[in-house]
């Protein structure tokens, strides 16, 4: 028995990649490989982001493009963790939030052994580069 796709089914799955405008496809191109796996709500958010994208400064647009590639390479668990950590860090007061980038640089300068200890939840001693 042949199956037919009802409009309600299509709507429940969200906007298909083929239904996006050329501009949306261009902006969301890094997401194309996994677009069909995204849930409807997530697709809606990405389409919302694509609508805001032209109003963003060029450097942010470029950054978003790069990070969309990173984003699709993450597992669903990693994405959930990233969103949760982002929310927590966003609660920091502005003066501390401004220092996050510096703190990230310091963290990257730590020896791998210390970073591994931190990943395991153990306190690392010493200063960056020491």
């Amino acid at each position: 028995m042949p199956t037919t796709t009802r409009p309600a089914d299509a709507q429940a799955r969200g906007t298909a990649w083929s239904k996006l405008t050329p501009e949306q496809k261009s902006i969301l191109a890094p997401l194309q490989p996994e677009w069909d796996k995204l849930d409807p709500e997530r697709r809606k958010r990405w389409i919302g982001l694509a609508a805001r994208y032209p109003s963003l400064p060029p450097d942010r647009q470029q950054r978003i493009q790069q990070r969309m590639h990173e984003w699709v390479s993450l597992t669903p668990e990693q994405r959930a963790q990233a969103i949760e950590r982002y929310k927590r860090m966003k609660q920091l007061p502005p003066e501390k939030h401004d220092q996050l980038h510096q703190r990230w640089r310091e963290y990257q300068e730590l020896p791998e052994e210390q970073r591994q200890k931190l990943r395991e939840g153990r306190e690392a001693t010493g200063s960056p580069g020491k």
Partner: protein
Amino acid sequence: MNENDVAGRIVAWLNQNLADLPAPTLRKLQAARLAAMAAYRPDRPLWGHSKAGYVLSGWGLGRGLGTRLVLPVAIVLASLTGLIYWQMSSHHEEELDTGLLAGELPIHAYTDPGFETWLKHSNYAPSQQ
């Protein structure tokens, strides 16, 4: 918060954000407005005869308001409140996506549990404020 407060907040929010609303949301708002207009019967008295002496202006919200007006207004207010809540939370999620993707920190900073521990260790985490 009474009906006037709610209506005032909704109107203020719409005045500020109407241009940013997506087309489907605008269509829903339009439908809600049309439903309210359809329910409104200007040829019928809005208030019972015992309240006929009241002269109310504007939305007529307040004492002596009859059910003919209360019901459609309540429906519209409830619809708008739900719609705006949904719209604001959706907008918040979009901001989250944009912030995460275009912020100063690379995504890797949010996926590396060691960085958060490093921040806590350095008294930078929100939980240690």
